[in-house]
């Protein structure tokens, strides 16, 4: 999703969670039904996911959305 100017950027800890769980980007991509390129873009912070995808990721890691996505650098 595009970032509206003036709004704070959304960061995430997907890469960290993925590494803790010993998953590859491909594994995570398959699990949340997106392409590997999307996981790369999410980890780099180049793409903000939809609410639906954010919920899918949170559900996959069995945690809350706020613990994965947060406002900050």
């Amino acid at each position, binding site marked *: 999703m595009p970032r509206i100017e003036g709004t704070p950027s959304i960061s995430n800890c997907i890469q960290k969670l993925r590494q803790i769980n010993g998953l590859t980007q491909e594994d995570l991509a398959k699990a949340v*039904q997106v*392409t590997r390129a*999307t996981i790369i873009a999410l980890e780099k912070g180049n*793409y903000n*996911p939809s609410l*639906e995808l954010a919920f899918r990721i949170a559900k996959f890691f069995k945690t809350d959305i706020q613990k994965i996505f947060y406002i900050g650098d």
Partner: protein
Amino acid sequence: MNRFVRYIKTYLILGLPLVIACILLGTPKTNFLKMVQDALSWNLMFWFLMLILFLVTLVVSANTREKALTRIANLKERDEREQFITGKASRITYIANLSMLILLFFFSIFSVGIYRLPEGKTINGKHHALNIGLNYNFFDSNKDSDSTLVYGTQTFALSKATIILMLISWQLSVFNVTARREIGKAS
């Protein structure tokens, strides 16, 4: 409908080599080749008929358009990020196309000419005149006036300006209808 379009598509692909063969055959010399060409000519006629039908279906049926043209347009929408990219690229393409069409439309109705004035008709000692004009014709003017053509599609061939104008209208109307439909779905 979908099955019918699929049959047409398959026929167009499989029949293409026969169409090319018919064109390459030219004027056959032997009787056998003449027979072959006769058969191929029937195929050629039918193939073109199906092609016209397919092209009309492409314009009319959104589903067919979606299936047939997404590959040519290289649209990849495997997930939401790719859908977002496609949306962004489409927006830029739409605006860029529109600007190009408006420019082409302007050039198709705008004319500039520099004329040499005949002796004695000079204006203030100047021998050349500049003519700037705007001209719009709905139909293309028939340049070959000596022809004995009674009826042909070229009789009612649309002018370049009309085609461009139709493309501009088509783009704007398709966009607006789609946008309104999507708004309706969302509300």
